[in-house]
């Protein structure tokens, strides 16, 4: 559909505008500047928030807000006429009544301060309305940011970001009181509110009212000036009042000088799979702040607490800084030369004596694509084994496998854009608000503002479940049953996408027959869901233009994880929800580079780009390029490697960036295996639990200390740049692999990660057009990438990834979940949480995050608490057939009945959920069945300190609004519309009466 374009004029410049654009949007698109402080973040939620009144323009003699007036054909606009300027200046003067200009000594004077720049543009010279402090002290209660009411211009961008983008609904402006201000919840200190510390409000604040505490007193040359000198200095400036233009000159000089010492480097977040990118502001090694920008392809200005504030680990005292070698029962610091020589000797010895397959290689989904590529090259071409795998085995391999069976590509069908614009989002066994926070904001916003429907299937009433139009609570491990029943019902009713099935899908009849047993009655019995719920679900899918299904560990970490993933893909195929915008299958990747690690070949059966290692044609391509012979048959996966160690078949292991000793299931067993290894190398940034079993520990460099690319859940490859030098003796992982390979005589010569990517692009067809040059700055590429560099954000528009281009419906049956025996009478669910990432090795170095959450807690339902005489703070012991833990209870309505939830955020064995999980696994991919665990519980101590502090956001009291509610401002007695004021002062004789 063509946009409806027409011509209009601003300041005598004629150009084309698009129907639906505001005057301001049309102007900005054509590089005409119109001031507009509250429009500086136009894409948050509802659009124009109309609070700042600095964008008045002259439209045929009438004063109008450019932000909220539609551009019209043949419209003639003047933004620089006497009257327009007068009106803009009036708006600005009102803002400065609320904001003291002490720019040169302000930490926000970094060249990008909207208030400063607008006042300067308007050539504001003197204060028309005297600045008056508000009767509220600054709020410094939150560990990461502060609110200074005296500097707050009440534009409400923070409110808009919190209410309509992050949709945590914490902030609002209380327009009713004498002196309006931003309040948190129902006006409590920030730290006691439901604030999730995502940082949106701080990132969008156009001045210094909301600031990262890490910036205060650090950003400017004079901002660290003691208060007793600073305050008289501000007074002096005001007293002599040389006119603001002179002040701006000085502050601009100072802002320019800051460029010398503040570095702003683009990076990609190293936490979850969403793939947020942003700038890191640093002064030497000190991190001043993380600043997202609307240019970021995935997240725009969005972040979560970890991406915005969770970077203290980089400068942690606990970082590994030197190679360590085990001698007796101690580690000794060593040189790289000593460590690498020892490794080369030991691995060569094992290879020669026990064979290549006596070695195992565990890769890292936290590290870069290039590093994963090099690691599998190391395993395959230097050591001749396919015994290589990465941690997607613990989470997402079943999802990939399910998709490869049905549609051919193990990745998200589209991008976040599709999720955001979908008619219906179904979330199964995932908790995106905590595990993929920024992705969740797009769902919450679409649901709140754009009428998107939401179905959540989860044992817990997590935040999305709470917001959903329909929250389904199936029996644990029964998702396949209800999904299949809904699919069957849709087919029975004739609601399937008939044409789509006929033209684009194979195996339809066989699949229909396989569904025979999945009647509504069967689902009612085994999934515990009513027929009405199932029918309602089917109807919602029928009525939606497009449906996206999002899923994660609640689906995959079961004995039938691959089959349930397959059932999801089947349902989407039957309803025609592939290959069109706003639809598709979205397995939510857990780590920043879970997708990329597998994509780039750290899998036992695949070379990069999911090409089977067994295929001679594929393997010979690599053999030729690498000049070595490669092993033909698939190697062992993570799980099998551990088993093989126990059996004595694997004796040497090299692991990097993976805390296997805590996050694998049944860790008692895993640790026993580690003890059996003859030689074990662990490469990490911290001395992890796993490293304690190592013979050699190598100090690696985290993302901020190197260059590379990560691939997010959308299949989007993004570059990140080096922010600081590696600490001490640390080295980027790719350099370590290269040095080790060369110690083994491999003769690799990569001088930069881009060299590695160039090699991959030549070898793996799906990455053919991937190159660093095409990913400069904020640019990114979504694979498959054609040789000309063209991305494929939406898959399957023309073909599915099979020879005949057609998808395949794949019959699956239900595998009932593991039952550990009647004695273990409580179901134990487990997973991540918002504040701490995974087990917490990185985030727990942040004092602020630990202040909000430092311990795991056991969620217990009110019913169970009553029955077992428990309260929040009670200490209990949980026992499964595999081990036991001791944790404190949190009574909550997020769980019901006999279902418990224990997050995995601990590095202490005593509290680690994987002491309880078993060694059973998904029958198709060997992913552990973490989610099929039952325990028994003993009360050890009735009363005790609650495990979650009272100042955690979960105890807050959100106050939903739609945005900043500017009407309330306009309805205030002391509010006069700007044109009215101008009329009264005689500088404007407009035609119309303004309502506001």
């Amino acid at each position: 559909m063509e946009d409806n374009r027409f011509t209009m004029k601003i300041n005598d410049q004629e150009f084309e505008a698009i129907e639906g654009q505001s005057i301001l949007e049309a102007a900005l698109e054509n590089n005409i500047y119109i001031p507009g402080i509250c429009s500086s973040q136009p894409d948050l939620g509802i659009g124009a928030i109309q609070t700042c009144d600095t964008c008045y323009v002259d439209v045929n003699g009438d004063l109008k807000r450019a932000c909220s007036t539609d551009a019209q054909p043949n419209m003639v606009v003047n933004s620089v006429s006497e009257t327009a300027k007068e009106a803009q200046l009036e708006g600005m003067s009102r803002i400065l009544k609320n904001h003291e200009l002490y720019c040169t000594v302000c930490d926000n004077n970094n060249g990008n301060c909207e208030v400063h720049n607008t006042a300067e543009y308007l050539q504001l010279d003197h204060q028309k309305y005297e600045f008056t402090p508000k009767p509220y002290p600054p709020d410094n209660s939150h560990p990461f940011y502060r609110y200074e009411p005296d500097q707050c211009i009440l534009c409400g961008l923070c409110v808009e970001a919190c209410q309509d983008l992050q949709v945590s609904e914490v902030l609002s402006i209380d327009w009713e009181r004498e002196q309006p201000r931003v309040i948190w919840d129902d006006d409590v200190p920030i730290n006691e509110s439901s604030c999730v510390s995502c940082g949106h409000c701080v990132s969008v604040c156009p001045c210094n009212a909301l600031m990262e505490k890490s910036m205060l007193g650090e950003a400017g040359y004079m901002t660290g000036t003691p208060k007793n000198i600073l305050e008289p200095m501000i007074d002096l400036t005001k007293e002599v009042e040389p006119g603001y233009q002179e002040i701006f000159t000085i502050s601009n000089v100072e802002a320019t000088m800051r460029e010398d010492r503040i570095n702003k480097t683009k990076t990609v977040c190293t936490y979850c799979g969403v793939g947020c990118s942003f700038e890191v502001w640093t002064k030497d090694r000190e991190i001043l702040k993380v600043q997202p920008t609307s240019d970021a392809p995935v997240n725009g200005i969005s972040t979560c607490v970890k991406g915005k504030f969770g970077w203290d680990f980089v400068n942690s005292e606990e970082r590994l800084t030197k190679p360590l070698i085990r001698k007796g029962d101690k580690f000794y610091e060593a040189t790289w030369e000593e460590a690498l020589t020892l490794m080369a000797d030991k691995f060569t010895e094992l290879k020669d004596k026990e064979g290549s397959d006596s070695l195992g290689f565990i890769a890292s989904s936290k590290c870069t694509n290039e590093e994963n590529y090099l690691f599998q090259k190391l395993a395959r071409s230097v050591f001749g084994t396919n015994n290589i795998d990465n941690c997607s085995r613990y989470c997402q391999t079943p999802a990939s496998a399910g998709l490869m069976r049905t549609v051919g590509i193990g990745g998200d069908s589209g991008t976040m854009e599709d999720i955001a614009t979908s008619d219906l989002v179904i979330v199964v066994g995932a908790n995106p608000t905590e595990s993929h926070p920024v992705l969740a904001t797009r769902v919450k916003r679409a649901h709140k503002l754009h009428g998107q429907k939401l179905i959540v299937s989860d044992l817990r009433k997590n935040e999305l479940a709470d917001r959903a139009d329909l929250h389904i609570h199936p029996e644990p491990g029964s998702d396949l049953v209800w999904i299949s029943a809904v699919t069957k019902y849709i087919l029975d009713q004739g609601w399937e996408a008939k044409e789509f099935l006929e033209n684009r899908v194979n195996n339809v009849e066989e699949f229909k027959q396989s569904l025979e047993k999945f009647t509504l009655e069967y689902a009612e019995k085994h999934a515990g869901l009513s027929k009405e719920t199932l029918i309602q679900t089917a109807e919602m899918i029928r009525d939606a233009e497009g449906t996206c299904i999002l899923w994660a560990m609640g689906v995959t970490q079961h004995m039938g994880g691959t089959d349930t993933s397959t059932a999801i893909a089947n349902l989407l195929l039957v309803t025609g929800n592939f290959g069109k915008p706003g639809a598709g299958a979205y397995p939510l990747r857990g780590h920043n580079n879970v997708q990329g690690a597998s994509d780039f070949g750290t899998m036992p059966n695949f070379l990069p780009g999911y090409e089977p290692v067994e295929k001679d044609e594929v393997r010979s391509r690599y053999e030729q390029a690498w000049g070595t012979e490669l092993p033909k048959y698939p190697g062992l996966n993570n799980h099998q490697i551990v088993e093989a160690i126990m059996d004595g078949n694997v004796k040497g292991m090299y692991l990097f960036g993976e805390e296997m000793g805590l996050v694998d299931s049944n860790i008692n067993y895993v640790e026993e295996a580690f003890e059996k290894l003859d030689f074990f190398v662990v490469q990490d940034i911290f001395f992890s639990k796993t490293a304690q079993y190592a013979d050699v520990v190598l100090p690696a460099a985290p993302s901020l200390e190197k260059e590379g690319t990560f691939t997010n859940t959308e299949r989007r490859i993004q570059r990140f740049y080096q922010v600081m030098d590696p600490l001490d003796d640390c080295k980027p992982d790719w350099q370590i692999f290269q040095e080790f390979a060369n110690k083994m005589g491999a003769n690799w010569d990569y001088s930069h990660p881009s060299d590695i990517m160039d090699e991959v692009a030549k070898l793996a067809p799906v990455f053919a057009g991937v190159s660093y040059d095409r990913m400069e700055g904020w640019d990114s590429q979504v694979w498959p990438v054609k040789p000309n560099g063209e991305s494929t954000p939406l898959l399957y528009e023309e073909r599915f990834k099979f020879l005949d281009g057609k998808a395949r419906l794949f019959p699956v049956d239900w595998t009932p979940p593991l039952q550990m025996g009647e004695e273990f009478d409580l179901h134990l669910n487990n997973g991540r949480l918002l504040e701490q990432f995974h087990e917490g090795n990185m985030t727990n170095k942040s004092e602020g995050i630990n202040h909000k959450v430092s311990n795991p807690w056991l969620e217990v339902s009110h019913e169970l608490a009553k029955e077992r005489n428990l309260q929040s703070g009670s200490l209990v012991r949980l026992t499964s057939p595999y081990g036991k833990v001791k944790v404190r209870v949190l009574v909550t309505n997020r769980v019901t009945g006999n279902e418990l939830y224990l997050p995995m955020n601990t590095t202490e064995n005593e509290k680690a959920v994987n002491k309880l999980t078993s060694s059973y696994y998904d029958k198709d991919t060997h992913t552990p069945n973490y989610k099929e665990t039952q325990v028994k519980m003993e009360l050890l101590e009735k009363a005790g300190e609650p495990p979650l502090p009272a100042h955690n956001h979960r105890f807050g009291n959100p106050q939903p609004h739609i945005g900043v509610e500017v009407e309330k401002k306009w309805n205030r007695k002391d509010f006069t519309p700007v044109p009215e004021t101008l009329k009264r002062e005689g500088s404007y004789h407009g035609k119309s009466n303004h309502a506001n």
Partner: protein
Amino acid sequence: MAKAITQIEQKRKSKQEERSEDLSAIINQIADNREVIQDTLIILQELHATGVLDMLKGLLRTREKVGQIAIEQINQPGMHNIIKNGMNTIGLLAEMESDQLKAMFSGLNTGLEKAAESAKTQEEVGLWGLMKSVRDPNVRTSMNTMVNFLEGMGNGLNQQKTH
């Protein structure tokens, strides 16, 4: 057969080793910048000899107290006037046409020379003599300029009033 262990024996460089490494790094830098360093030392010697260094040292060590006193002193009505007047004068200079000012200054200069000369000779001039000098075209030009100046200044003053 490796049990989990947590004890790390750090290879501590002795204090002396660390010192000598640091020192050799510094010595290298000095050698690379020999001339700069020598010049700097001479400047420092002079500053020391004149007591400037001593003064600076005191100032820096008491910077917070001194800063406070200084800012208090500056933050006084008199000082405000000085700053304001200074800024106004700078503003005036900025607005003046340099060509005009040049013409005026050159006139002023010649006038001064002439005046100085006449002051030297202490020549008495009678009323008649003054009347006669009005006829002099040079004097007339000067007087005309003065009148125009007065008119412009009055104009400026009146404009200030209406604001």
